[in-house]
């Protein structure tokens, strides 16, 4: 396809260090001998790279960057064809000379074939850049989520002032004029989460202590996969079983009008946050150095006394982290609370009433909200609040866990 001239130029371009490659387009643009057609390729290429919507949109991971790579290669080929070869050669040579003193490359490459080395370098650089792009994607997604929630959610505060949105106790999204107060959902989320943690904390820590210190190996080996299994069961399945089994049970035991209450939801959420509480607490307990235990036994303490007075205090930050992660899961859980919490719109006074937490509100109304309408904005604002709450709990958990790790490593 390309002449031998072009091939040799491409080769020498490849040989340039990365920084010089970036400089090359600038040189091409500023050289008067280069025809205008070749010059136009460069801004065109830049435009294509910058625009988010192209052949394959950039925010589709991997594939989105693939077309950009292809276009770069195409543009390079185009420039090489449109430019007079001597001019391009000269430009490349100039760049190459200023970059590396002539004695350097041969000596440094040792016994290796220098041309081979050069060819690798370009591939390496592209690969490194590509991998870096993927590496920072977690940040991009997280920031993107929060940005989108704010963009779609903040406009609601033009309609309902921030404080009235947060502490208003009436939610009538479709009446005219609509009223948006999320206090009922905030209180419901808080009550159910606190209820869930009160149930899950003692059970979870006791299970973790049993598995880490007491249980015979056979029991430990069979219980752990079961807890992993629980983490894998879809929440809608757990909600379904709760609806059929737990709901009538709660109604009969507590003599309520309905079993669809905050209490039912709290019990379900306690159950669902157990896997993370148990596994993180157990890790924390097993991270306590053996010397602690041995010293305690040497003082004549029993295993139980050691667990209560030595191990749990030593692992307390890990256990705190476990609880924070459990709180995060409980607040964010959607399907079970949507199915069993009852869905009442007033501010709940006790756990025995039907209620609707924040997640359930979004899930229940998201399909009815008109895009860009007030209800739509209000739901995104609730989403932003949820995001901030779970972000905070996760952050605390992470900091506390790091502290525990550092404490026992040094």
């Amino acid at each position: 396809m390309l002449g031998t001239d072009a091939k040799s130029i491409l080769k020498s371009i490849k040989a340039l260090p990365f920084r010089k490659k970036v400089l090359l387009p600038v040189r091409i643009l500023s050289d008067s001998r280069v025809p205008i057609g070749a010059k136009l390729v460069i801004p065109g290429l830049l435009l294509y790279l910058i625009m988010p919507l192209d052949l394959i949109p950039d925010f589709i991971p991997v594939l989105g960057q693939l077309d950009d790579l292809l276009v770069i290669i195409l543009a390079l080929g185009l420039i090489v064809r449109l430019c007079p070869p001597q001019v391009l050669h000269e430009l490349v040579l100039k760049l190459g000379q200023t970059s590396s003193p002539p004695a350097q490359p041969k000596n440094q490459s040792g016994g290796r074939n220098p041309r081979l080395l050069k060819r690798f370098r370009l591939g390496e650089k592209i690969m490194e850049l590509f991998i870096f792009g993927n590496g920072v994607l977690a940040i991009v997604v997280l920031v993107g989520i929060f940005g989108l929630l704010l963009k779609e959610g903040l406009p609601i505060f033009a309609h309902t002032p921030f404080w009235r949105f947060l502490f208003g106790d009436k939610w009538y999204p479709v009446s005219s004029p609509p009223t948006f107060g999320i206090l009922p959902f905030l209180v419901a989320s808080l009550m159910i989460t606190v209820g869930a943690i009160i149930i899950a904390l003692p059970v979870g820590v006791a299970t973790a202590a049993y598995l880490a210190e007491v249980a015979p190996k056979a029991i430990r080996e069979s219980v752990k996969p079961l807890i992993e299994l629980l983490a894998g069961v879809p929440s809608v399945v757990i909600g379904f079983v709760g609806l059929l089994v737990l709901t009538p049970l709660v109604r009969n035991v507590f003599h309520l009008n309905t079993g669809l209450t905050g209490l039912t939801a709290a019990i379900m959420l306690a159950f669902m946050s157990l896997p993370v509480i148990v596994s993180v607490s157990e890790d924390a307990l097993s991270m306590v150095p053996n010397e602690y235990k041995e010293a305690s036994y040497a003082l004549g303490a029993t295993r139980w006394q050691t667990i209560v007075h030595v191990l749990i205090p030593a692992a307390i930050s890990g256990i705190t982290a476990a609880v924070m992660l459990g709180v995060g899961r409980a607040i964010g859980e959607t399907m079970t609370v949507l199915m069993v919490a009852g869905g009442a719109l007033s501010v709940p006074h006790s756990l025995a009433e039907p209620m609707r937490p924040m997640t359930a509100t979004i899930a229940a109304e998201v399909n009815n909200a008109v895009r860009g309408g007030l209800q739509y904005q209000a739901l995104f604002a609730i989403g932003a609040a949820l995001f901030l709450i779970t972000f905070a709990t996760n952050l605390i958990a992470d900091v506390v866990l790091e502290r525990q790790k550092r404490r026992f490593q040094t």
Partner: protein
Amino acid sequence: MIRSERGHGAKATERIAFGLLALATFLVVAPVIYIVVFILVNGSGSISWEFLTQAPRHRGLEGGIFPAIVGTFYLMIGTLLFALPVGVFSAIYLTEYARRNWLTRLINLSIVNLAGVPSIVFGLFGLGLFVLAMRSGSSLLAASLTLACQALAMIITTSREALMAVPRSYREGSLALGATKWQTVLHVVLPQAMPGIITGTVLATSRAIGETAPILAVGAAFLLPSLPSSPLDQFMALPYHLYIVATQVPGMPERTMWGTALVLLVVVLSFNTMAMVVRWRFRQRRV
């Protein structure tokens, strides 16, 4: 004398306390077994050839759940397609290329927090970005991308663990032979870490396809006349179907609910089991 008596007291306390701990463990485990067995027993009666291979009729009151099974299968493929490469490359960056600086700390922090974002918030994200801004509509594509975002954190975390478990000496050996960094990663580190990466990815994907809230927000369909024929078509999915038949349709026969729950549970748990088997087989090979 007094001392030994106190010792006895402490021993008795210990026995009671350990009994309580065992009880707590039982309280955790029993419901898990109960749920699985309950669904197996009640659901197995409603599984029939017709149920598995026919589309729902009469607002889901009759017929089967075939389109939902197919939809969930497509979602799984889509999620894998988007999340696996990005997750693995991201893990490679973190283990092989990243220096210990503020950026790496920020990435790690993002991953931890991404894992904790509520599923319904992912749903809102998918709705706002993929469905509306990208105009892909309530489609398989939008749902797959949303679920991929959700699975991403777990895939990165597990892949990173798998990569870190590869001994340093392997990398040093490869580099000493003159391989470049990327060659080392591709030919030495990745093959060693593959089983761990596969396990983590399969687990993350099975979690993702069990999610209901994201696809509810993105807009799964309850009833569709035909199977999706392109990624931009609407879709049915098992978890959403279960939610609808269990709560939204009055007069729904219970066997339909049980059957749907059973199929969903079997799909998700078989993937979990598959992941475990991969891990187990690899451990065997290593030993």
